[in-house]
């Protein structure tokens, strides 16, 4: 075991959960299998790993009482970044309004990516390279159809803010162990992740021996809380029995969301961050097990939001989830965006679109949005502006709900005119889930969503979400 160096504290945590819950029984029924209890969490049509990660990171930064400009480094662990090869790390940085010198280091390759990112962030803080680090672990797999992963994997994201020194909780150095074994797999050109080996073979020859060996090296007693991997909804409990782990803080998360893969280890620990004590955080993936020890002295800001958010979500049908994942498509051609993702327009406007920026007229103070198409102030005709971040909350001025739309749009699709709290005004899409509750004057917030997957490229922007009834 290596020495961890100076103490590294967790000052805030946040989570990002998707909109949909899919009953395992329904998936099994579709494939002619019986049984299956509980649900897994799945992304809606405009959610994915980036939108969940933004949600978790934004919440963690707020919980920590930090400003985005204070973040010196961002590590992001996920099996499936939004771009298999592309600007994933810069997109996340842009949506969080991080400094221009701070983009995400993307850690991928297996579900061990989440803890790998945490370890990398912790090391950077311990080494003095980053005073404040943000680590995000997220999962949004596309499971191969008809396989066991469909009823196992759940989508979610979690984020921690780390700082040097003491805080409500500390995170220690890693312990790790590996064996080169293939369990789940996705090759180049494969859209879905599949199980490569027999489940019992992995369980008996890889998962249980590897994790049991690793756990022996961890300091634990009866009061220790554990966040343990649970790839299939059963192995977590089996492993806990073998380790004699009495308090499994990851169990409520797995029960509510399924196996959240790269996010599972960090997410499974959050529930224990509300009370003092020691938590062993164990991650697994790609034939590797890694653990870190978190010592909680006082409740970590943001951790108390986990429980109410675990209860949220809307039950969705299997076809709805397949459609949202792009695994079920309408025949024929869909309507293409007039501006292709390769257009110079996206290069020009992406910083403003992803960062939700406006142009404030230096003469009259009116904020013009989007800035790129407003060389002249719409209010006074002046032409000098300063770049400003738009407020992320506001109230509904007026709205409509498209009730029928051609593919690839999915109805109900609200369009909402919003007065933001800084006096600026925008028109953006609203969340489908907000459609029934929209009314003039309703309080809303801006949330990152995927607007389209255009010619194979995801396109992101902000949408309007009702804030009424949301846990805060």
């Amino acid at each position: 075991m290596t020495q961890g160096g100076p103490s590294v504290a967790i000052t805030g945590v946040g989570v990002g959960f998707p909109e949909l819950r899919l009953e395992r029984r329904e998936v099994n029924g579709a494939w002619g299998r019986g049984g299956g209890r509980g649900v897994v969490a799945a992304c809606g049509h405009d959610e994915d790993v980036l939108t969940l990660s933004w949600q978790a990171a934004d919440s963690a930064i707020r919980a920590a009482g930090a400003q985005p400009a204070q973040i010196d480094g961002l590590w992001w662990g996920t099996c499936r970044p939004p771009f298999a090869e592309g600007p994933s790390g810069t997109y996340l940085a842009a949506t969080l309004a991080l400094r221009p010198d701070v983009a995400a280091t993307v850690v991928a390759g297996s579900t061990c990516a989440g803890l790998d990112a945490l370890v990398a962030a912790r090391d950077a803080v311990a080494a003095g390279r980053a005073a404040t680090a943000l680590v995000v672990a997220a999962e949004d797999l596309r499971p191969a159809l008809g396989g066991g992963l469909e009823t196992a994997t759940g989508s979610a994201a979690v984020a921690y803010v780390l700082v040097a020194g003491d805080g409500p909780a500390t995170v220690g150095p890693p312990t790790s162990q590996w064996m080169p074994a293939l369990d789940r797999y996705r090759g180049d050109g494969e859209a879905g992740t599949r199980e490569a080996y027999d489940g019992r073979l992995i369980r008996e020859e890889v998962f249980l021996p590897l994790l049991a060996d690793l756990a022996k090296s961890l300091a634990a007693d009866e009061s220790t809380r554990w966040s343990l991997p649970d790839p299939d909804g059963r192995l977590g409990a089996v492993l806990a029995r073998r380790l004699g782990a009495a308090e499994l803080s990851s169990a409520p998360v797995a029960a509510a969301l399924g196996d959240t893969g790269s996010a599972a280890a960090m997410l499974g620990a959050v529930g224990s961050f509300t009370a003092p004590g020691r938590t062993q955080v164990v991650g697994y993936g790609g034939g590797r097990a890694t653990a870190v020890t978190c010592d909680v002295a006082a409740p970590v800001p943001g951790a108390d939001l986990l429980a109410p958010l675990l209860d949220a979500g809307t039950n969705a049908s299997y076809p709805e989830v397949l459609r949202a994942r792009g695994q079920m498509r309408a025949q024929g051609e869909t309507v293409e965006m007039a501006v292709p993702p390769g257009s110079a327009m996206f290069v020009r406007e992406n910083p403003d679109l992803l960062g939700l920026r406006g142009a404030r007229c230096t003469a009259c103070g009116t904020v013009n949005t989007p800035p790129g198409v407003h060389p002249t102030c719409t209010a006074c005709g002046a032409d000098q502006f300063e770049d400003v971040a738009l407020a992320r909350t506001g109230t509904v001025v007026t709205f409509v709900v498209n009730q029928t739309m051609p593919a690839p749009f999915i109805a109900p699709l609200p369009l909402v005119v919003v007065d933001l709290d800084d006096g600026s005004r925008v028109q953006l899409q609203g969340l489908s889930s907000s459609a029934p509750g929209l009314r003039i004057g309703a309080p809303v917030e801006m949330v990152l969503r995927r607007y389209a997957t255009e010619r194979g490229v995801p396109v992101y922007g902000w949408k309007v979400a009702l804030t009424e009834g949301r846990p805060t």
Partner: protein
Amino acid sequence: MSWNRASVVGAGLIKMGELFDQSYEQMAKGAFDAAVASVDRGFDPSLVDAVFVATQRGTLWGQEGIAGNTVTSAIGLSGVPSTRIENACPTGSDAFRIAAMAVASGAHEVVAVVGVEKMRDKSSEEGLLARAAGGHPIFTRGESAPVLFAPFATRHMHDYGTTREMLAAVAVKNHHNGTLDPYAHFRYEVTVDEVLASPPVCSPLHLLDCCPQTDGAAAIILTTPQRARDFTDTPVHVAGFGVATDHPYLHEKSTYVGLPVTTIASGRAYGMAGVGPADIDMAEVHDCFTITEILDIEDLGFVEKGKGGVATIEGETALDGRIPVNPSGGLLAKGHPIGATGVAQLTECWWQLRGQAGDRQVKVRNGFALQHNVGGRGSGVSVVNILTVNP
């Protein structure tokens, strides 16, 4: 005094509808021939010395690059100067306005305005609905045509207590008028209950709150008031016109209970014509959606702001009402072949002012008719033309 420096001597249109059996060119020729045939003392088409073509969206029939020459070729006037004009939903009314200015300038003596639009050669998904994917990739994504107007319905209902029944009354009236118009796309009555029960399209608007997608064409022949006497004893003069623009994004509107562009454009037209709203005998206004007509009649000054719904339910805009609006059936029943729409509205005004509107003829007291369109991104363009039979 009215402007009266250009005069209509012929106007006509083809039966509107889903004209799957007619090409763009055939529709253009049908409308032009109808206009030629309408000239009281006959008309030799070779007298036309310029053509203004109103087509808003050639992409709907697979012709991205159409220019004026397509129409001159189709109507047998190849060689004659021809210019295509595009200005959103007011395309036809703006082409007419520009043609009137061309005549008044002395540059051309006899001009034809040909409005023609193919709306149904592509499926709805690939056609007009594709607009929802056009424009700015985020700020206008999902902005189908109803999205441009439905937010005003939401707000008008909230601020003034306008009801869905009041919106429906517009559809009921205009569908009734359409049954009296042989050129209308839809020629059947609808009831308030049918409008309320029709499927939701873009809440709060339902299917029967929306105009159809219609193929159609209309044409008008304009000349100087002096030359007009060669063709007819009852020319209809261009009394005035007005155009106004507003910012193109919905979030930049100064109000969501009216379209100030219409008020500004009509103010300019009234001033030029030397009349006010009370002098207008009938109006053809832009009722792409039921709410739009309610906004229009308020913004044009026919009724007080906020009272458009009540006025409609009380029959003020019916054929025998205080100010008959859309006797042709409007866009809701006659149809909205975009480039042709304004030209067809002006044709209706021409018929009404000359007492040729048959069963839907309104009483002409002062000799003035008003035609109006509004549209474009953010409904930011409005055109108003005022016609008169008064010399």
